């Protein structure tokens, strides 16, 4: 603020002198006063001009605008505060969502030239489901032959589970640590050298080479006290001595969750498919070129190795960031779109509120214009008011975003990578700045349009546009939210085939140099016998891979004997393969429909047997055979079907598959997971398992204990998170839309109160008055709904992967949304119209 200018006193003196002059000439005091005022001119204008002379005048003007805006905020407080709060909420939600998306999806990975890193795997068009097709070790050489397209390539397991190593340091209890066997070039593909020690070399892969290990930064910190002398030390993994050759920097977390990297030993078998290729291309090579090269390689494989490969196999190339974010990407993007729609809706609301306020203030504007304020000055005033509101809203919104980000991270399912790193990054702040700009525009637009000569009609048209836009946005958000919610409900209702949700499951993969199939069978028989004898346990069993452990499993080829003759050798039929102990079905709650469960008598020497799922049985029946007693070829051996169990879902709640079960005494693949349930709660069962395990083999460790219910929960957690977010946004949008149309109708009846009063006095019925007042707006609502539904359909189709048990065009959902939004709009507009039409005509006529 500038020092006060003496201009007022000067002008008073000047005016007095002019008056005196006229009085001396004999004028009346009134005439003299009028003369003096006329002669001197508009004091406000002079004040303005005098102030404008000052070098700091521009700043001063701004300051006065802000002060005026502040005063006008206080005077018209309610509406402006509401508009600012709505904006802050919209900004807060969208900035928070943006920060999450930025951290998970957009933030660059720590790997140099990450755009050149890709995952290469296979997709079999025949299996149709989302199966991650895997590679075998010899395919490394096949891929390497593409020297033009592939600079470096390494193989990693498609899934880490099953590769854990038991680490025992000092006197601590043994712990299972996620481990990644890999070929030598992995870290060269990633472009990161170890922080300590050396990288793998091809020599480490050779059979009989000394066992070596590279530690992750966190394992080095937690289990080796961050000892820099660790390189060259020997540590025991699965009871075998390994030399520590390197420690990776903390930035490297690939594959996600890896604690130890070990050399992947060469294996010539092409049938052992459990790997993915990680590839670094030369800079000039496009992903398309890489895809073409991989596709060529895989087609050559079919020609060269008839038995191992299917003609329907195709190459899939996934960019590294996409592989890491996986399915959380579309979900987060959808939530971000919804939050931006909500932000737009908030901007529309704020603009609407500012417009109606300025409508109320048009008298003030008229007065100020009469007092000499130019259009530019008034516009400047509105701009400053809008800026003030937008600035407060942005600041408050950013603060809200910081809190929301923390809350969202807490609420988010654990398997969304990098989400914990989310915060108000520079990119998020830039996003906030854009939203602030939008918000400012929203605040200025309405009032500014009122300065135009035909403002009454402009503002009506503008308000209709607002109602239209807001309805469309609301319908779009609500419809998508509802589709996701219906999908989630469908997931919850899905019969996974596991009735005993309280059954405790855990990883108990036996580790150690002495472990072989025979000793494993003895161990499990011993453990299960002891557990079953305990009073806490109702039933216990073991399985190769527990339900919902991950998207990758032991998918095996199979063929029915009766199909044998006709089968195209290039078309492989695959099913989920499980190795189980007796009592497994009883423990997890999968119904045995026909035939019998396995017993301990289904042993090595006896007839090879098999239990199949209902869907597989249906296939045999469709071909005209009774499945029981049929023979199936699995893993190269013929087995007789002795039982049929209900269908279960092992990979994902939303994914069906056929299942094959083999008794543990007749299979080489290990049983790696223990399942048990009992009258005792899971915590007691866990303690019992720990005690029993210690007495049998204290060198073994259990990991990943969870009940089946928790496993199912985790599998659907992302959808639940998404439903929460989307429904939160949708209810926000609904509220804004209701408030929006309510205020539009309230104003239109206020402006037309005289007209309504006259009609009322002339005998118009209340129903007719209400209908007149709201029919126009409701027509706009219907149009907005149509636009919104079109948008929702589009959005839903784009997010089809996230829908389950419902289609984007589900008429029930879309109709429900349309009816709900229309009903709310109708009620929101009916109330003010009904109140206005019921007024005493006299009140309305005397109002102005």
């Amino acid at each position, binding site marked *: 603020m500038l020092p006060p200018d*003496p201009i007022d006193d000067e002008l008073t*003196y000047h005016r007095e002198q*002019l008056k*005196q002059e006229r009085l001396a000439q004999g004028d009346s005091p009134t005439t003299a006063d009028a003369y003096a005022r006329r002669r001197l001119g508009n004091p406000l*204008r*002079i004040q303005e*001009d005098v102030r404008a*002379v000052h070098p700091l005048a521009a700043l001063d003007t701004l300051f006065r605008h802000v002060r005026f805006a502040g005063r006008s905020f206080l005077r018209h407080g309610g509406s402006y505060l509401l508009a600012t709060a709505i904006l802050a909420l919209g900004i807060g939600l969208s900035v928070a969502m943006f920060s999450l998306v930025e951290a998970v999806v957009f933030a660059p990975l720590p790997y140099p030239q990450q755009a050149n890193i890709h995952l290469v795997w296979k997709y079999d068009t025949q299996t149709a489901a989302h199966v991650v097709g895997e590679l075998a070790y010899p395919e490394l050489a096949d891929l390497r032959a593409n020297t033009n397209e592939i600079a470096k390539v390494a193989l990693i397991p498609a899934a880490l589970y099953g590769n854990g190593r038991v680490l025992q340091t000092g006197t601590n209890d043994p712990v299972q640590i996620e481990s990644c066997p890999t070929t030598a070039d992995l870290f060269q593909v990633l472009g990161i050298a170890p922080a300590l020690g050396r990288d793998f070399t091809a020599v480490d892969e050779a059979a009989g080479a000394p066992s070596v290990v590279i530690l992750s930064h966190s394992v080095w910190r937690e289990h080796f006290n961050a000892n820099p002398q660790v390189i060259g030390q020997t540590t025991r993994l699965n009871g075998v001595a390994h030399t520590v050759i390197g420690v990776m920097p903390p930035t490297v977390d690939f594959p996600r969750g890896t604690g130890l990297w070990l050399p992947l030993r060469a294996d010539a078998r092409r049938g052992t498919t459990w790997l993915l290729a990680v590839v670094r291309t030369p800079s000039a090579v496009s992903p398309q070129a890489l895809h073409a090269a991989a596709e060529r390689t895989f087609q050559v494989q079919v020609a060269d190795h008839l038995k191992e490969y299917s003609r329907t196999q195709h190459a899939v190339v996934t960019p590294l960031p996409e592989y890491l974010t996986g399915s959380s990407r579309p979900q987060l993007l959808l939530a971000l779109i919804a939050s931006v729609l909500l932000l737009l809706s908030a901007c529309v609301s704020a603009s609407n509120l500012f417009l109606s306020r300025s409508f109320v203030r048009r008298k003030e504007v008229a007065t100020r214009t009469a007092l000499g304020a130019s259009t530019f000055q008034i516009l400047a005033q509105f701009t400053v008011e809008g800026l003030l509101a937008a600035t407060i809203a942005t600041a408050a919104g950013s603060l809200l975003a910081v809190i929301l980000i923390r809350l969202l991270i807490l609420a988010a399912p654990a398997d969304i990578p990098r989400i914990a790193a989310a915060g108000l990054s520079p990119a998020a702040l830039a996003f906030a700045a854009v939203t602030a700009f939008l918000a400012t525009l929203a605040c200025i637009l309405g009032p500014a349009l009122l300065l135009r000569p035909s403002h009454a009609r402009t503002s009506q048209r503008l308000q209709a546009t607002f109602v239209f836009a807001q309805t469309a946005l609301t319908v779009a958000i609500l419809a998508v939210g509802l589709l996701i919610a219906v999908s989630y409900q469908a997931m919850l209702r899905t019969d996974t085939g596991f009735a005993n949700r309280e059954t405790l499951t855990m990883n108990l993969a036996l580790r150690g140099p002495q472990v072989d199939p025979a000793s494993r069978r003895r161990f499990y028989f011993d453990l299960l016998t002891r557990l079953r004898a305990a009073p806490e346990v109702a039933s216990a069993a073991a399985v190769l891979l527990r339900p919902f452990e991950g998207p990758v499993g032991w998918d095996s080829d199979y063929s029915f004997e009766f199909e044998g003759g006709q089968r195209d050798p290039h078309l492989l039929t695959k099913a989920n393969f499980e190795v189980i102990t007796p009592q497994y079905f009883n423990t997890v709650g999968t119904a045995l429909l026909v035939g019998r469960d396995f017993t301990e008598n289904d042993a090595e020497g006896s007839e090879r047997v098999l239990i199949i799922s209902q869907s597989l049985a249906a296939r045999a029946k469709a071909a005209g055979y009774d499945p029981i007693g049929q023979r199936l070829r699995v893993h190269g051996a013929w087995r007789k079907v002795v039982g049929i169990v209900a269908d279960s879902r092992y990979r994902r709640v939303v994914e069906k598959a056929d299942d094959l079960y083999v008794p543990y005494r007749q299979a080489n693949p290990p049983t790696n997971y223990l399942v048990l349930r009992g009258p005792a709660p899971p915590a007691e069962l866990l303690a019992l398992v720990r005690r029993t395990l210690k007495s049998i083999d204290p060198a073994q460790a259990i990991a990943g204990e969870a009940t089946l219910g928790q496993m199912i929960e985790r599998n659907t957690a992302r959808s639940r998170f998404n439903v929460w977010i989307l429904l939160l946004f949708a209810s926000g949008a609904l509220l804004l839309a209701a408030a929006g149309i309510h205020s539009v109708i309230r104003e239109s009846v206020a402006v037309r109160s005289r007209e309504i009063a006259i009609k009322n006095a002339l005998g118009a019925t209340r129903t007719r008055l209400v209908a007149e007042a709201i029919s126009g707006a409701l027509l706009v609502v219907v149009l907005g709904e149509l636009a919104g539904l079109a948008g929702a359909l589009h959005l839903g189709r784009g997010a089809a992967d996230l829908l389950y048990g419902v289609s984007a065009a589900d008429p029930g959902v879309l109709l429900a949304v349309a009816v709900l939004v229309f009903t709310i709009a109708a009620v929101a507009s009916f109330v003010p119209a009904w109140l206005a039409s019921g007024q005493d005509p006299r009140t309305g006529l005397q109002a102005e």
Partner: protein
Amino acid sequence: MPRPTPSADLLQGTLNMLILQVLSRGKANGYEIAKLIETRSSEALQVDHGSLYPALRRLEQNGWLTAAWELSATNRKARYYALTPAGRKQVDIEHTRWRAAVLAVTRVMRPA
């Protein structure tokens, strides 16, 4: 709102000069300055009293004037403006400039 009359507009640029000239005879307040210009020009020049003050502020900022509250002849408090040494120099500059301008205009306006 009516803007200044055309005659005052014409004088817009010369108002500063007139103020300085009036003040070169001694200090005066705003009203007196306006009146002095009007009487000296035999009422030919009508000063827009309102535009006097922004002009005064401008001159003050250039360091040509100082202002102080004093008692007027009618024994009332008025703000009196006086030339500074820089202001006196400016009066000479304005004189030269004015004479040159008048000469130029006279030459142009001389009957052919």
